[in-house]
């Protein structure tokens, strides 16, 4: 009986340890990494920023704008960060010139925040190629956003697509003026508070 228990326990430990070993790399990739579509206000001047939370993994109502429930917000092509002039949180951001998969840790340097309405942490030309006459912009491949979230955790994000759409998220082409922009982005959210992705 003792013997069999021992064997059973050993087997269990072995099983658990083997599970752990297998899971570690999986954790890194599949648990945190997600590709999402995010439909935002398409007006360059009017209306609310559409807010996103890494913890939620999606949008947050604009009524929560005065809270730490969101990390960043987008209105058309302008990105705000939940900190200082933009919100009560303590989010930071930086853009790294590396493909998403090559960014393995959020080095604690060069992070920025929105100091004022006009001095935002992120400038459009840093991450997108903007064509004002065609009214389109394309996220530049090889640029990765690294975030400190509003609650002090870390995330990395890669913009993949920015499509002009109507209110329902159906793509529109010129001459129709878009009312929404549908972003597709990939992100990895590190919940455990470390800077590793």
């Amino acid at each position, binding site marked *: 009986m003792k013997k069999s228990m021992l064997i059973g326990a050993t087997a269990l430990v072995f099983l658990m340890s083997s599970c752990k070993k297998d899971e570690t790399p999986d954790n890194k990739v599949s648990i945190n990494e997600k*590709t999402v579509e995010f439909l935002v206000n*398409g*007006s*360059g*001047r009017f209306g609310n920023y559409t807010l996103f939370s890494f913890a939620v993994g999606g949008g947050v109502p604009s009524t929560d704008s005065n809270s730490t429930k969101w990390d960043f917000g987008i209105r*058309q*092509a*302008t990105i705000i960060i939940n900190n200082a002039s933009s919100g009560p949180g303590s989010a930071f951001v930086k853009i790294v*010139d590396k*493909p*998403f*998969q090559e960014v393995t840790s959020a080095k604690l340097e060069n992070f920025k925040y929105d100091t004022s*309405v*006009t*001095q*935002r942490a992120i400038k*459009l*030309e840093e991450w*997108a*190629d*903007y064509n*004002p*006459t*065609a*009214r*389109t912009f*394309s*996220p*530049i*491949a*090889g*640029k990765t956003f690294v975030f400190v979230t509003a609650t002090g955790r870390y995330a990395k994000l*890669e913009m*993949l*697509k920015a499509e002009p759409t*109507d*209110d329902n998220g159906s793509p529109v*082409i*010129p*001459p*129709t*003026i*878009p*009312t929404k922009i549908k972003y*597709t982005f*990939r992100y990895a959210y590190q919940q455990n508070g470390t800077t590793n992705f």
Partner: protein
Amino acid sequence: MKRYCSISLIGLFFTLNLLQAQVRSSDSLTGKDLEEVVVTATRTERKLGNIAVPVNLIKQQTIVQSGSLRLNDILQEQTGMVITAGTGSNAVGGGVFGNGIQMQGLSPDHTMILLDGEPLIGRQGGVMDLSRFAVGNIKKIEIVKGPSSSLYGSEAMGGVINIITEPVQGKSTSINARNGSFGTTDLVLSGNHAVRKMGLYYFGNYNSSSGYDLDPATKEKTLDPYFNLTGQIKLLLNLSPQTKLNLSNRFFHANQKSFYAVNSKDINVGGAGITSEYHLNPLLTHQFNSRIQSQLRLTMSRYRFTQSLDLLDNRTSYYRDDFMQGFYRAENQTDIDLNQTLHLTLGGGFTLHTIQTNRYKEPKQQQVFHAFMQSEWKFNPKGVLIGGLRYDHNTDFAARLSPKLALSYNLHPRFKINASAGGGFKAPDFRQLYLNFTNTAGNGYSIFGANEISADELNQQKQAGLIAVVLPEASLIKTLQPEISTGINFGFMFSPAQRIRWEINFFRNDINNLINYIPVGINNNGNSIFSYININRAFTQGLETQGTASFKNWEITAGYQFLLTGDKAILEKIENKKLYGRNSPLGNARLMTLNDYSGLYNRSKHTAQLRLFYQDSKSGWGGSVRLIYRSRFGVQDIDGNGFANMKEEFAEGMLQANATISKKFNKELNIQAGINNLLNQTNARWMPNLPGTHWFISLQLFLSHKTNKQ
């Protein structure tokens, strides 16, 4: 690049072989068309066979047999010519799609378009919409490729297209009525009445269509219904045996009603776009003696495009656009035969450009003085050397000197070599200088012409609290330079027999100072302020080849162009391993290599045409089959690297097949039927100007016979 070299070698080998096989008699190079007289290449009448630069000639018969209606119909079937479908008009949807022309890989704003030698105006966003021009009054079209600014000044970077209308001669009247798919109606009345010392040519055209829809998923039609009218009257007065006066005028009026579903499931915005155009061109020619001839040319052109769109439910204004352009020029050209071997062309003039639009702060104008000279030296019976130089002085930006050197040499009576090098330029256009535009509807960005703003003014505005940030790039705003190009063309023409001709031309164009917009500041709403600077550098290179053979009632032409283009800054970024891209929209970013680079947008690497014409004057039967191919071309940038590299960023290649059949009864009646785009190849998004399969039938009546002088 490897491919490029091997093609040229094969070409050369092929030529030399043929040359040896075909040496027969010593008569001069006399391909079928080589005796045709062209005027555009040197601004003097020269036989096509004696021209030193690449020239294509489209004859009236080809236009008629192809069943073409508008200028873009016939140009797209020519070797090395591509019709682009940019968003053309900068109105909400534009009244019409921009049927622009791309030659030697240069964009539509780098090709000059002339009507009887005078520049046409009315470009929208740099694109001259070729569908504005009816072809019923065209005698021939001359296309000169390569930089020609040494004769024509601004815009003639990629080349010149000269539409030459019917001359005043003889007596004739003809009526043409046509009906076709999409409710297309086209009526032409034209005639020629010459009496002794004077003559009159008139042309009237009504053209209308109910439009078409390539994408039923959208509420908007792809092409909205329209009608247009064209009129031309040419008057010739022979004042004396040495002096003649030509008075030519043209008017055009188009009306297109456009409807849009703006943020709505149904059409809720609509209104008319109206284009009107007037062109008056007196030309006085005097022959002083057998050696000296002089011309005085005056041009007055006006172009206006207005569009007013309203919300349909309450009739309130949704969008207004008003764009008015004027062009006034006086020019003298004097041709002198110094002796048997040296011909001199001298000229100069003054041009006034005016523009008035709701997008600029106030009406604007520019004055240009220009002078040019060209000498043509027949240094021996087999060769001619041409040197030209033109100076353009503009009141609003830097002056420009454009040189050109061209050589033509008959190595063998049937084999001629052409080589030329020249400079081209394009003056900054009005929007690049004067645009004063803040997009209130969509993005809230502002864009200013280079003359409308400066770093100092931006700094003052910042101090006054009007704008938020002045970017360091603002210091780059300064007096705009013209966009400039240098082009080299080298080719040969080989005519193994009277009715067979083969031509090949290699070209390279380097374009500097291309004007583009950059962000220079941020306004109080956090949106970008843009202005124009000279920044981009690009090149186009490739080869163009065409073979023509005619026998009995048949004529066959095969043409091909291989084209490589590039943005030099992008190529440098790739070489420095700084440019990433994706293989699919959601794929991982990876470094781009030179193999991934596809060149400038809207350029097809391969274009080819095959045209077969048949005309039997005895039975009256005629017909044509034309195949037009262009390979895939980059259209959009999903991964932000400035070029097309993934499948989704390209428009697919396309093969158009067009055919006509015609029968002439007596000499008074001709009936033609045609079908275009037989393979029904369409692309609603990227080639909205190409409708699906469509047919037509037309009836032409000659009320009195033409008497041709020749």
